[in-house]
C-alpha cells in the first residue's frame, strides 16, 4: 500500500472514531438539555410540598414520592449494607474461607441479573405473604440489586489496605476481630462509603422492580408496610399518562433524579480519586 493511502486511511479512521464518539455524546447532551430545560419549569414549592392532584387536574406535587424514595432507598441500603459489607469482609479478610468461591460467583451472577427479576422475587417473598403491596417489599427488591455492588466495592477496598496493618495489629496481640473492626475497617471507611453511595445511586433510579412491590401511593405515608411511591415510579406513571400537567411534573421528577444520581456519582468518583480506594 502506498504511503499516501496509509496516511489517508489513518486520517479516515481518526475521523470515524471522532464521529462515533460524537454519535454517543450528542444524544446525551440532548437528554441532559431537555431534562434540565423542561424539568426546571416544573420545579416550584408546590412540587416539593404537596400531594398529587387527582388525575386530569392541574397542580399538586411529588411530596409522597420524594419521601417514599428516601424511605424505600435508605431501607434497601440498610439491608444491603448489612449483608454486602459482611460478604466483602469475608472475601477480603478471610481469603481461605470455603464459602468464598460460591460467594464470589453468586455476587458476580447477581450483579448481572435484570432488575425486574428482583421485583418478581420480592413480590413472591414479601407481597404475597403480606397480602398487599408495601414499601418494604420494594426495599427488599432494591436491596437484592444493591448487595452485589456493595460486596464488590467492600472487597475491593479492603484488599487495598496493606497487609502490614493487619500484621502489625496481630503482632500487638490484638485478636482478629479487633484488628478488622478497629484497624482495617476504619482505614477503608472512605471506600466503603463510596460503594454504598454507588449502590444507592443505582437503586434510586430503578422503577422496574418497584412496579409490583412498592406499587405507588398518592398519599403521604412514612409506614413502609403500606404501599409507597418513589420518584422513578411516579415518573413512569406520569410519563405514560395522557395529562399535560403530569408530563410537566414527570420532567421535574427526572431533573431531581438525574441531579441526585449525578451528584452521588460525582462524589463517589472524587472520593475514589483522592484516597486509597478501589480501581
Amino acid at each position, binding site marked *: 500500500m502506498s504511503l499516501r493511502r496509509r*496516511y489517508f*486511511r*489513518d486520517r479516515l*479512521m*481518526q475521523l470515524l*472514531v*471522532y464521529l*462515533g*464518539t460524537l454519535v*454517543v*455524546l450528542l*444524544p*446525551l447532551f*440532548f*437528554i441532559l438539555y*431537555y*431534562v434540565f430545560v*423542561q424539568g426546571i419549569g416544573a420545579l416550584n414549592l408546590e412540587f416539593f410540598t404537596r400531594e398529587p392532584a387527582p388525575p386530569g387536574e392541574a397542580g399538586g406535587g411529588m411530596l409522597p414520592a420524594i419521601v417514599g424514595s428516601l424511605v424505600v432507598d435508605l431501607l434497601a441500603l440498610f439491608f444491603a449494607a*448489612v*449483608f454486602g459489607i*459482611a*460478604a466483602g*469482609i*469475608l472475601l477480603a479478610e*478471610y481469603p481461605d*474461607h470455603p*464459602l468464598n468461591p*460460591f*460467594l464470589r460467583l*453468586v455476587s458476580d*451472577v447477581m450483579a*448481572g441479573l*435484570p432488575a*425486574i*427479576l428482583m421485583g*418478581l*422475587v420480592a413480590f*413472591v417473598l414479601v407481597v404475597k405473604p403480606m397480602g398487599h403491596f408495601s414499601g418494604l417489599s420494594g426495599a427488599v427488591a432494591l436491596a437484592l440489586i444493591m*448487595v452485589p455492588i456493595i460486596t464488590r466495592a467492600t472487597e475491593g477496598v479492603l484488599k487495598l489496605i496493606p497487609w502490614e496493618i493487619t500484621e502489625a495489629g496481630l503482632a500487638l496481640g490484638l*485478636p482478629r*476481630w*479487633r484488628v*478488622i473492626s478497629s484497624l482495617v475497617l476504619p482505614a477503608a471507611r472512605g471506600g466503603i462509603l463510596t460503594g454504598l453511595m454507588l449502590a444507592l*445511586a443505582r437503586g434510586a*433510579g430503578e*422503577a*422496574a422492580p418497584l*412496579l409490583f412491590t412498592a406499587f405507588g401511593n398518592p398519599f403521604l405515608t412514612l409506614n413502609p408496610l403500606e404501599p409507597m411511591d418513589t420518584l*422513578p415510579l411516579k*415518573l413512569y406513571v406520569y*410519563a*405514560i399518562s395522557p395529562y399535560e400537567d403530569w408530563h410537566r411534573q*414527570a*420532567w421535574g421528577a*427526572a431533573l431531581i*433524579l*438525574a441531579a441526585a*444520581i*449525578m451528584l452521588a*456519582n460525582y462524589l463517589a468518583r472524587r472520593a475514589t480519586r483522592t484516597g486509597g480506594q478501589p480501581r
Partner: protein
Amino acid sequence: MPNWLYQRLGDRLFSLSIVILASGVIVAALLVFWVLYRGSQEAFATFGFWGFLTGSRWDAVRGMFGAWPPLLGTLITSAAALFLAFFPALATALFVVEFSGGRLREVVAYLIDLLAALPSVVYGLWGIFVLVPVVRAYVELPLFSWAAAHAPGLLPLLGPPTGIGLLSAILVLALMIVPYASALARDALALVPQSQREAMYALGATRWEVIRRVVIPYARAGIFSGVVLALARALGETMAVTMLIGNSVNLPYTLFGPAATMASLIANEFTEAEQDLHLSALIAVGFVLLLIALLTNLVATWILGRMSHGEGRK
C-alpha cells in the same frame, strides 16, 4: 473482661456473624433462582417447557400463554441494539484511550459513565417526548411513504409509522448499552503495554495501523466481554423499552410497529394479572429471562478468563 473471652470468644463470634451474614447473600441468590423456578411450574406444567417457549399466542383472556412473541422481541431488540452500539462504543473507548489526553479524556470518560448512571425511566421519558416525534416525522413517515409509492412489498416489514414501536426502543436501547461495552473496552485498551505500541511505531506504522494490528488484538478479550455484558444489559432493560415499544404481543413484529420484550411484558402485565396461570406465565417469562441472563454473564466471564490467557494481561 477475662482474656480468653476477649480473644477466643470475640474471634469466634465475629467470624461466625460475618459468615452468617455473608451466607445470607448466597441464600438470597439461591432464593432468586428457586422463587422464579417454583413460580413458573404451573405455566410449564400446563404448556410444557418447550411448548411455553415456542407458543406464539399470548392471550390472557383465553388463558393461552406462549412466550415466543416476547422472546423474539427481546432477541430482536437486543441484537439490533448491540449491532448499533458496537462501533460507537469501540470508538468512544478508542477516543478516550488513544486519541485524547488530560482533561478531555477525563471529561469524556465521565460523560460515558454518566450514560450508564442515568435512570432508565429518564431515557424512557426523553424517548416518548423527544425521540419518538423525531423518529416518526423524519425516519418512519418518509420511509413509509417512499415504500408505499415504490416498493409496496416492503410495507408488511415496516408496519405502522407511529413512532412508538421497535425502532424507537432499539435506538434508545443502543444508547443505553454503549457505556457498558465502552467501559470494559476502555479498561482493556488501557492495559495494553506502551512498549507494544512503541515497537509498532518503530516499524513505521501509522497510528491506525498500531491500533488495528496491536492495540485491538491485544485487548480483544476485554472488548468481547464488554460486548457480551452490554448484551446482558439489553436483554434485561425494562423501563425505557416498556415506555417506547408499544407493548403488543401479537406476531409478526414489524420494524416500526409495536412489540414486546420479556421484561416489558412482565412490567406491563404483572400488576393486572389476576388468574394464577397468568401470574405463573409471567414468572415463567422471568425464569426464562433469568436463564438467558445467566448464560450471557457466564459467557462473558468465560471469554475474559479464556482469551486473556497467555496474552500478558495482568
